[in-house]
C-alpha cells in the first residue's frame, strides 16, 4: 500500500498542499479532484516521484522516500518505486518509434528482464483486455486517441504494478473514445486493480471513486 504522510509541495513561494496524508488502499479506487491549478496532477505525479515533495514521506514498503534525500539515493529509491507503479498520461505518451506490441513489452523486457516471447504473450493478453488485440503491429501514429490511451493502459499494466495512476486519462478524448477508455477503467476496477485517478469530470469521478480526495 502506498502511503503519503505529511506531504507538502510548493512551487516557489506558492504552497500547493501541506501536511497531506493519503493511503492508496489495495483493490480500491482513489479519485483526486479539484479545480485546475489546485495541484491534483502534481499530487498524482508525486506518488510515483515524477515530482519530488518538499516535506513528509512517500512510502511503498519497504521503500521509503523522505523529503530531501541526496540526489543519487533519491534516484535509486524513486526508480524502485516506479517499478511497482504504472502511469497513464493525459497525452498518452506512447513511444512513436515502436509498434503497439513493442510499446507494451519494452518495460517488462528491459526493466524486468522478461524473455521476449513471454513478454509478448502477456502483452497480447493485456491488449486483448483493453480491446486492442487486433492492433499489435500498428504504430502509435496510426491510432485514434481512444485506441492510443487503451494501449497506454496496457503498457502501464505490463509490469504488473501494484497501483495504476491515471492522470486525466480521458480529457484529450472525444466522447466515443472517452466511453471506450472509461469502460476499460471500470473493468479494471471490477477486477480488483488498485487505481488512483485525477479527473476534472465530477460525474466520472463520482462513479468510480471508492475514496474521493478534493484539493482546494
Amino acid at each position: 500500500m502506498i502511503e503519503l504522510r505529511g506531504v507538502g509541495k510548493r512551487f516557489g513561494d506558492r504552497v500547493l498542499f501541506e501536511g497531506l496524508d493519503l493511503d492508496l488502499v489495495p483493490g480500491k479506487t482513489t479519485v483526486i479532484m479539484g479545480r485546475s491549478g489546485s495541484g491534483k496532477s502534481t499530487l498524482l505525479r508525486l506518488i510515483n516521484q515524477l515530482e519530488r515533495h518538499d516535506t513528509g514521506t512517500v512510502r511503498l514498503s519497504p521503500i521509503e522516500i523522505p523529503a530531501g534525500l541526496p540526489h543519487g539515493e533519491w534516484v535509486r529509491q524513486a526508480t524502485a518505486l516506479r517499478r511497482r507503479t504504472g502511469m497513464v498520461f493525459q497525452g498518452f505518451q506512447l513511444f512513436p518509434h515502436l509498434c503497439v506490441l513493442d510499446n507494451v513489452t519494452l518495460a517488462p523486457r528491459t526493466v524486468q528482464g522478461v524473455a521476449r516471447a513471454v513478454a509478448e504473450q502477456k502483452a497480447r493478453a493485456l491488449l486483448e483486455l483493453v480491446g486492442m488485440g487486433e492492433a499489435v503491429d500498428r504504430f502509435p501514429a496510426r491510432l485514434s486517441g481512444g485506441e492510443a490511451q487503451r494501449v497506454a493502459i496496457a503498457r502501464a499494466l505490463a509490469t504488473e504494478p501494484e497501483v495504476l495512476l491515471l492522470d486525466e486519462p480521458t480529457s484529450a478524448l472525444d466522447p466515443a473514445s472517452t466511453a471506450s477508455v472509461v469502460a476499460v477503467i471500470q473493468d479494471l476496477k471490477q477486477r480488483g486493480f488498485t487505481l488512483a485517478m485525477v479527473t476534472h469530470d465530477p460525474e466520472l469521478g463520482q462513479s468510480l471513486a471508492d475514496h474521493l480526495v478534493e484539493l482546494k
Partner: protein
Amino acid sequence: MLRLLACLLFAAAAIAQLPLPQRYRDAGVLRWGSDAEGGAPFVFLDSAHPDRGEIGFEVDLAHELGRLLGIEMRRVQAPFGNLVQVLQRGDCDLAMNGLEPTQSRRSQVRFTRPYYIFQQQLSVGPGITGVRGLDDLDGKRVGVLGESQSHKLLLEHPGIETVVYESNVTAYEDVINGRTAGSLADLPIARALRPMFPQLVDVGEPFGEDYYCIAVRAGEADLQQALDAALGVLFGNGTLERIYRKWDLWVPAEARLGEDSIAQRFANDAVVGGAGDMDWGEALVMLGRGALRTMGISVVSFVLAVLLGLVVALVRLHGPRPLRWCAVAYVELLRGTPILVQMLLLYYGLGQIEGLRLDAVTAGILGLSLNYAAYEAEVYRGALSAIPRAQREAASALGLTTAQSLRFVIVPQALRLSLAPSTNDFIALFKDSSIVMVITVVELTKQYQMLANASGRFIVLGLVTSGLYLAMSLPLAYLARRFERRLDRDHA
C-alpha cells in the same frame, strides 16, 4: 672619360644583345612561379630570419636573370606539383623551381637549356642496414616528392611501395618517423636538407643524371630564346658557378652546362604537341581504385563520427558537469580549427612521438572522424533536445533508468530526426575526405591530380572523377531519402 663611355656603350650593347619579347618589356615584370614550401636550396624561407623573404640559389639566379634582361623578376607562389598548370593558366610567365623536363612536362610546356645538372641520392633511416641501392628496397616503402624525377625513377621499381609527399621535408620526416624505409631525392635537396635530418644515412653513390630547366608556355619560343641567351651569358661569365659555389652546389659535372649537347638537349621540342599518350584503361582502373579508397575511408570515418558524436552529445546533455564542459570544449575546438591543421598535427605532429606513430590511412580516418564527430554531436544535441520531455517521463514512469530511457526511447527517436542533417554531413565528409592526400593517402582526388598532371588531361579526367564522386554520393542521398520516407510512413 673615353673608357667610361666605352663601358656604357658595352653595357648598352649587352642589353641590346639580350632581347626580351616586347610584351614583357611593356609589362615591366616577369613573374616566375616556384614553391617555397620545403624548397631548400631552391627557394625557401630562412628559418633564422623568416621575415626577410625567400632565399635560395634560384632566388639569386632569378635576380641575375632579371638584371641581365633588364626587367623586374617577381616571384609567384605555387604548389610544386602544379607549377606547369599554373604556368599554362598564365598565372606566372616562367616556372623555375628545380623542374625536370620530363616527357609529360615537355608535351605541355617549353623548356630552356639546363641551368643545373643533378643526380639522385638515396637516403635511409638510422635503423636500416644492408641497403646499397634501390634494388635492396624491394617490398619496402620509399618516400618521394610527387611529380619529381625521383618519383619517376621509383616507379620503375615496381617492387617498391612508393609513398608520395607534397614536400621533401615531410618525405624525410616520415623516414625519421619510421613510416618509410628511405627517401629518394635530388642530390641538391638531399644536401640542403641534411642539417635538418642528421640521423639520415646516405647510401650508395649518387646516380642518374638529369637537368633543371626553366619552363615557359608552349607558344613562347621568343621568351625561351631570351632566357637561353641569358643563361648562356651567366654560365659564360662565371656567375652560375659563383652562385652554385655559394650554395655548395657546384659539382664538376656543372662544367658541362656549356656543352652544346646539353645546351641543345631540349631545343628540339620546337613543336609541342598535345598531351602525352595515356592508357585510358589503366587510368580508369586507377581512378576506380581511388574511388574505392575514398568510399572506404569515408564510410569508416563517418561510422566512427556518428558513434563518437552521439557519445559527445549525450555527455553534453546528461553527463556530470565537468564532463559536460569537456564535451563543449571538444566541439568548439574541433569545429573552430581547420581540418587541414588537425590532419597535419595527427600525422606529422604525433609522428614525432614514439608510440603515437599512426599510418597514413589510420591517421586520415581518425582525423576525419574526430572532426566530423564535433558536427554530428551538435546535430544529435539538437535532435535529443527536440524529443518532448514527456517521453522521458513516460519511460521513467515505467521504471526505466536514465540510461535505459535514453537507449530505448530517446536516442532512437533523435536518430530518426537527425537522419536528414546527418546524411548531409556524410556527403560533405565524403568530399572532404580528399584532404587525406596531404598525409600521403592516394584517394580519388589525389589520383586524379596525379593522372592529370602526368597527362595534362585535366578536363576529361576531371569529368570522369566528378562522375565517380556523383556515382557514389547520389545513390547514398537516394537511399537516405527512401529510408526517411519509410520511417515517416510508419511513425509520423
